[in-house]
């Protein structure tokens, strides 16, 4: 690059972004490693070593967060992948109501998560909620969706999928539409059926879309907080507590060091799962 262009493309353009990003994001992230080792009141801190982390792993009400976070991320992510792919196929086929259906599937993505959470927790009310009264009319006794500790997490995950599947679908639609027409023509010459088209062409060739959906949905699932908080506040008991909601609870309780330790754990958790996953997925893509 010539000297003139080095002056034209000066790093001064990067400076405002760099300052904001550094001060607001990088510095707190770096500081979190230190403050997670302290008992902390914002104005004052005591160094207590790994005590916060030990508490996190030993206290059942805290360590349940690992399991729940993982389950929540896996369930929402896999449902979004499968559902998004199927909806993507459906919404790229020749339907008359295609654009209507696309809008309907996508719209929940834009609605406030809190609003969705409140509306669904009303509908999931065990006795008067819309879901169970409808089931009762069909002669089925519906469970206590959000009150039963064994299914509460899954109920919230279902609402998460309802809200987020439009995004996955849109990515799949873009991926499926970018598959060259020749593949379908070749399949027709070879006499393949609809199943072959789906399994041998659409699934492997929309692989980049699948990878994006997996990564985005999985990371989103690991970090999710607002929907869970709006619907159950981590309850009943600690049945739907994830790491992010535990961080908020500890923050509210004034345990800043412990909350920060939670942040560090979430950081490590996300990084340890997301980086290898993305590397694995991108390697698969090359092999294709």
């Amino acid at each position, binding site marked *: 690059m010539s000297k003139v262009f080095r002056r034209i493309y000066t*790093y001064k353009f*990067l400076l405002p972004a760099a300052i904001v990003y550094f001060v607001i*994001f990088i*510095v707190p992230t770096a500081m979190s490693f230190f403050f997670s080792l302290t008992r902390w009141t914002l104005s004052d801190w005591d160094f207590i070593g790994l005590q916060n982390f030990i508490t996190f792993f030993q206290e059942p009400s805290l360590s349940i967060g690992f399991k729940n976070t993982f389950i929540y991320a896996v369930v929402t992510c896999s449902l979004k992948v499968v559902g998004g792919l199927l909806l993507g196929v*459906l919404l790229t086929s020749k339907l008359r109501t295609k654009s*209507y259906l696309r809008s309907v599937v996508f*719209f929940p993505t834009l609605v406030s998560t809190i609003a969705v959470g409140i509306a669904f927790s009303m509908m999931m009310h065990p006795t008067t909620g819309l879901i169970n009264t409808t089931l009762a009319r069909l002669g089925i006794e519906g469970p206590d969706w959000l009150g039963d500790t064994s299914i509460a997490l899954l109920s919230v995950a279902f609402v998460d999928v309802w809200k987020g599947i439009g995004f996955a679908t849109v990515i799949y639609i873009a991926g499926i539409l970018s598959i060259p027409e020749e593949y379908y023509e070749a399949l027709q010459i070879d006499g393949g059926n609809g199943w072959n088209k789906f399994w041998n062409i659409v699934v492997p060739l929309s692989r980049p879309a699948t990878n994006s959906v997996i990564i985005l949905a999985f990371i989103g699932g690991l970090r999710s907080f607002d929907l869970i908080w709006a619907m159950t506040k981590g309850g009943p008991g600690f049945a739907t507590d994830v790491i992010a909601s535990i961080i*908020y609870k500890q923050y509210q309780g004034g345990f800043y060091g412990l909350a*920060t330790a939670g942040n560090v754990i979430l950081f490590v958790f*996300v990084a340890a799962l997301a980086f290898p996953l993305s590397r694995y997925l991108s390697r698969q893509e090359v092999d294709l």
Partner: protein
Amino acid sequence: MSRSVRKWMLEAAAVLASVVLFWVPLYFVVLTAMKSAREASLMNLEWPSEVQLWQNIKEVVAVRDHMLLRAFWNSSVLTVLSIAATVVVCSMAAFVMQRRQDRASPWIGFFVLAGLIIPPAIVPTIWVLNELHLFKTMTGLVLIEVALGFPFCVLLYRSFMATIPREIDEAAVVDGYGGYRLFFTILFPLLQPVTATVIVTQAVAIFNDFTNPLYFFPGAKNATVQLTLYNFTSQFVSQYNLLFTNILLITLPPLVLFLFFNKKIVAGMTAGSIKG
């Protein structure tokens, strides 16, 4: 069964599913917002004996000394300021990031990607804001939104910048343009399509943001629309009609955006993700 019949049935099933899964919840929200408190508490799909939507709106707006109006004002200010700052800051950064390749480039790319993946550290961020006297201030929250939106937006801008030929820069330099004039008078206007995408996607994200105002903008005076809605859940335990009126009111702005910019939003979201 012939192909066309099967296709017709598939389509009918899809439309039916869309009605059950989408229109029924929406209908439920609208219906409840129109009812009296007593009828709303039944949580059913029956038509209200008396439609009192307007009365509910007036009532919910008046709650806690017109808190909702203040929340709408706060959310609007937050959204507009954050987007304005994001557009300027991210487009400038993307310009250099895309045009200039040197030893620093991989590092910059690494930090940007890290920002997409890593959750922000909450209490240390509060601590930093506190040290800067920006905690519980609009300025502080705007900075948060800009910093956390930066990785996504800068990637959008960067991939669009790559489609603008470098010859334009060279011609401008020959004509004696400096960096700032080149960027602000020639390149920035060319970025208009992606700027529109950034504005629309960020508008939805920031207007709907709950977590960041919850942590970094506490206090009754500071409420944003999502926080008000959340706070009302405890106040309106026996007044679901008002709660749902509130839901309806704060869903309107994104709905309007959706009606006008549907394509733009979808384009932006896919552009950001497919390239990864």
